[in-house]
Structures are given as C-alpha cells and as structure tokens.
C-alpha cells in the first residue's frame, strides 16, 4: 500500500512541472483554436472558423504543404545516403557522424546561408566546373529555397541516420549474407534481400526522426530565410510564431498548431507500428 502511494509521490514533481508548462499550454491551444482573439481584448467564440481558414487560405495552408515537402527532403537524402554509408563503412567515424547533431542549428543555418549565398562556396564550385548558368542565391529564389532548406536539414540528419542504420547492419547475422552469396546474389541483390529487410526497424526509426525534424523545423528557417521569399519556405513552426506574436491572431495560430500536432501524430504513429 505504501508503495502504491509512493509511486505517485515519485512521479508527481515531474508531472507537476510538465503539466504546468506543457500539458496545460497544450490544452489551452486547443481551446484558443476555437476563438478569435488578439491576446489582449475579449475573445470571440468562432467554432471551427479558424480551421476552415487555415485549410482554405493559401497563405495559411502553404506552410503545412511545405512541411510535408520538407519531410520528403529531410528523409530521402539521409536514408538513401545513410544506407549507402552504413553498407560501405559498417562503422563510420563517430565524431564526424554525430557532429551535426551537436552544432547549434542556428550556427549551422548561418553557415549554410553563407555557403548558399550568391557569392558563396556552392556557386563558386559550380562556376569552377562550368555551370555558371545554374548559379543563384539558392535561399533567395523561390524555386530553390525550400530545397536548400532541405539540404541543410539533410546535412544535420545524415550522420545520425548513418549511425542508426550501421548499428542495424552490424547486428545482422553474417550467415544471412553467406546464404545469399551461396545463392549467387550480387551486391545489390544482397543489399535488397538481406540488408534492407534486416534494418527495416532502423529505417522506420529514421523516418520518424527526420519527419519530426522536418515538421518542427523552426531554427534553420528562422536563421536562413524567415519563411521567404514570398512564403516559399514558410513552415508551420514559423507561421505559428508570427501569427501568435507578430500578428496576434491567437485563434489562427492555435488552429495551425493543433493541425501540426495532428500531422505529427499521423506521421509518427503508423511508422512506429510498422517498424516494430
């Protein structure tokens, strides 16, 4: 009996802090999303209007679409390259692999915005190999800005994915490869029939991580483009920030936040189930 109460006593301090600063705000976001409110004056009940607005106003649902595109960009590179690296290296240089996870995203974003500027290293390399006609301010051109943000995200996540995937590869039973080789499988076939299914769980985990990073990408966009040019890199995180703090459209910001949470849950739950 003592233990039964003790359990709560042990959990309570953490739950209290967490409840006050995370759970209660979360509940408030859900409530605010049903009102029109400037944060100072009287709030007006508007029902689902904010959700309708977010889903129908191109300026407001574009961030959600951009976030989905970023999921693809943040995920594809790190997983494809990560699998290649994991297969080629088995054990990569740990320091190099984890470095991008430790560098502050604001510093990485700044460095990349210099690299990708009109006179930056990327363009100079392109000029050096005779591709002058494709050079541009990558983050300042609406046709490339989102992809450029994707490159920054991929840089940050590649090492972590490689690390996870190579751990998976190392755990595979060597006899599986021998068996495949006896069946006359080439390297590609071996990869497809042994490695890929073997690291299915790791791939799933990587997808969750990269998707989460893409869906809540605030730091890098805040430092590099602030959502520009012309909304090309507007992401929900930044849009919520602006709606809530600059425009003081608390209701719209909250509706967008709730939708973002829904998208995150919709993404992570099935992938986690699939990889289990």
């Amino acid at each position: 009996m003592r233990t039964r109460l003790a359990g709560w006593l042990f959990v309570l301090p953490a739950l209290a802090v967490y409840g006050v600063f995370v759970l209660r705000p979360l509940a408030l976001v859900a409530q605010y999303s049903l009102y029109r409110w400037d944060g100072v004056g009287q709030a007006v009940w508007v029902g689902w209007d904010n959700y309708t607005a977010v889903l129908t106003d191109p300026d407001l649902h574009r961030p959600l679409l951009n976030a989905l595109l970023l999921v693809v960009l943040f995920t594809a590179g790190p997983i494809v390259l990560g699998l290649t690296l994991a297969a080629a290296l088995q054990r990569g240089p740990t320091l190099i692999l984890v470095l991008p996870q430790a560098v502050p995203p604001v510093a990485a974003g700044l460095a990349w915005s210099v690299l990708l500027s009109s006179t930056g290293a990327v363009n100079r390399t392109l000029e050096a190999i005779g591709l002058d006609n494709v050079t541009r301010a990558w983050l300042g051109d609406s046709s490339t800005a989102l992809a450029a943000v994707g490159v920054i995200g991929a840089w940050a996540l590649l090492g972590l994915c490689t690390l996870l995937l190579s751990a998976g590869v190392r755990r595979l039973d060597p006899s599986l490869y021998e068996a495949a080789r006896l069946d006359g499988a080439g390297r590609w076939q071996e990869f497809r029939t042994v490695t890929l299914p073997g690291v299915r769980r790791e791939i799933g985990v990587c997808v969750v991580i990269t998707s989460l990073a893409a869906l809540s990408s605030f730091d890098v966009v805040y430092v590099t483009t602030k959502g520009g040019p012309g909304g090309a890199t507007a992401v929900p995180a930044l849009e919520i920030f602006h709606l809530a703090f600059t425009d003081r459209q608390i209701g719209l910001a909250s509706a967008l936040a709730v939708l973002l949470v829904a998208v995150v849950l919709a993404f992570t739950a099935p992938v986690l189930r699939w990889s289990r």
Partner: protein
Amino acid sequence: MKLTTQIALAAVTLLPLAELLVTALHPPGTHPPGLTWPSDPHWSNFTDAFRSAHIDRALLSGALLVLTVVPAALALSTAAGYALARLPFPGRRIAEGLFLVGLVLPREAITLPLYQQVRDLGLLNTTTGLALALIAAHLPFGVLWMRTHFASTPPELTDSARVDGAGPWSALRRVHLPLADDALRSLALLLSVWTWNHLLFALVLVDDPLRRTAAGALDAFQGRWGTDVPLLCAGALLITAPVVVALALAHRRFADALVRGVAVR
C-alpha cells in the same frame, strides 16, 4: 573506397564549420565570397565579439541555464522514471501516456500559452522562467529514458531491497542510483547539448539576447535590417566551440546516447 567515402563524409560535415571560420576572419562589415582565406585575417573579430556583442555574458548565461536545467531535469526524471518502471501504482499507464505525448509534441505548438503561463507567474525575462520551460520540455524524454534504464535492471534488485525492509526511496538511493550512473551521465550530456542549442523558448521568453541560451544569443549581433556577417560568424563559432569541445571528449558517449535515445521513442 572506404577511405574516400570517409574523407568525403568528413568534408561535407565540416564544410559549414570551415565556412564559418574563414568568413569570421574577414574584415567586419564585409560580405566575403565563399570559402576564401582573407589576405589579412581579422582574428580580432573574435575579441570584438566579446567586446562589442558581449558574447562572454551570453556564454555565461548559456552555461548557467545548462547548470540549472540539467540537474533539475535529471532529478525529476530519475524519480518519475523509477516509479514508472519499478513501482506499480494505479494510473501508472496514464502517467506514462502523458509523457509519451510530450515526446513527439512539436514545441512550436505550445509556445504562446507557455509564454502566457510564464508571464502570469511573473517570470518573463528571467533565467528561472526559461529554465522551468526547458526542464518541462526535456522531461518527457528524460522520464522515459530513465524508465527504460530502470526497466532494464534486474527486478531482483528491487525485490532484494524490499526484503531488506527498505522503502522505495532508500531502494532507489542505495540500490538503483549507483547503478544508474552511466545512464545519468549520457542523459546529462544530451540534455546539456539540447539546452545549449535551444532557440525557440529563449526567443519568446527572454527579450535580452544576452540572458538567453547560447543559441538564442546570436540575435545580439543583428542590427535593424541586417547583420555584420563576419562578426556574426565569429559569434556563431564561439557558441559552437563548447559543444565541439565536449563532443571531442565524449563523442562515443554522445553517439551511444543518441542511438539509445532513439530507442526510448
């Protein structure tokens, strides 16, 4: 083949840091072309970052936050994680579910009510307010990390402690904590890096860039419309340096912790 792959990987990984360094050495106020070594390296930009942008105060503030947030988060996580793993109590699954929600919750979603909460407590623009918000944000991960750890210890430990007549508190302190040393160190490392690098809450809860996290301090370099790029790069390197040093000393633990942290999810 392996070597070239490794070199290519290292080059791509280090490229942004190299760019920060060479840009930081160009004359302040200029917009240097990418990756060119300046004819006259301005190492003074780093001292200017201390003098004119007071980066020393920013680094101190970042360190103070790490020293506040991490121990508090560790203590709360240990207690809660222990209870979730080892103390059967009614509603345990609910408590665990609540923390699971926080694990995937995008922080951006709750920023505004969080701001109001901190304001109503009179803690805007204080280290305390920002620290509390960061502790709370780290708790889901910390609690589930510690739960995973305690769940992996042999159940006989708890049983034997109970036979000895020890209550849950002394069982945790005498039996479990000494064995949790490694898990705690790894968690501390992860939380330190994440606290140091955190931007969003710092931006919203503390106006003065020099009283934020280290990452939030970069704003101190921004002017009305733009920025002094070389100085900004110098500042960015200075806030990056401590994590790189920490990583050089403990990259294996960090890598291991990242992988184990993923398993917590």
